């Protein structure tokens, strides 16, 4: 009888479909593609503003496929924001006097900051129009 060496399973190419949490992880990571897209989009906008072609840009942005793309980008960046701000307390454990500040407090703080900053940005953008 020959004794085989320990069995090493082949690589599982579809590992990210095996559990819900792995799929969520991959989705979370893939938001970064839309983060990149959003940045590109904003750069295009800034370029248009600075070169006085805002009107053309608005027309481009109003194309249905552009809107569709940006709706997805909105969902992705929002998903990114929620997950990223929720995970932050993992790296930054805050201790006051030996008492560990619970995760939800930090998360709540992060989300509040998000709201406030979003409000400020919206205010500055929309102020005079």
């Amino acid at each position: 009888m020959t004794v085989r060496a320990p069995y090493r399973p082949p690589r599982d190419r579809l590992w990210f479909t095996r559990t819900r949490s792995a799929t969520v992880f991959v989705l979370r990571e893939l938001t970064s593609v839309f983060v990149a897209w959003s940045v590109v989009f904003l750069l295009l906008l800034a370029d248009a503003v600075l070169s006085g072609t805002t009107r053309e840009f608005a027309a481009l942005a109003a194309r249905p496929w552009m809107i569709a793309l940006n709706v997805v980008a909105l969902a992705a960046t929002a998903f990114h924001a929620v997950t990223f701000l929720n995970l932050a307390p993992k790296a930054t454990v805050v201790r006051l006097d030996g008492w560990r500040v619970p995760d939800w407090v930090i998360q709540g703080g992060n989300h509040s900051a998000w709201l406030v900053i979003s409000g400020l940005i919206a205010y500055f953008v929309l102020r005079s129009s």
Partner: protein
Amino acid sequence: MKRTLEPYLWLLFSGGGVVAALALPVLVLLFGVLMPLGVVDWPSAGHLTALLDHLLVRLALVVVVVLCLFHAAHRIRFTSEELLGIARFDLVIAVLCYGAAVAGGVTAAVVLL
């Protein structure tokens, strides 16, 4: 001790993650969805130009762009390696991803400054 660049990349990635989380959703919502759909009106060109008039605002924008791109580059690097099992090409992938981010940053600087 082995030197590693990862701590620096990770700081950029984390900073980018925070900036992207705080700033991007509302900008995409306004400029990418609500204005094109006509839910809110486009601000006047003058107002937008005025916004970008401050050097500080433009500098801040460059920083946001660079950080967000680094964030994206970092994640895309690791996720592609995990998803496709190509970690052995890490060096190439890293150069491509961060290279793209740097290129984006340079573009932003050229456009804005």
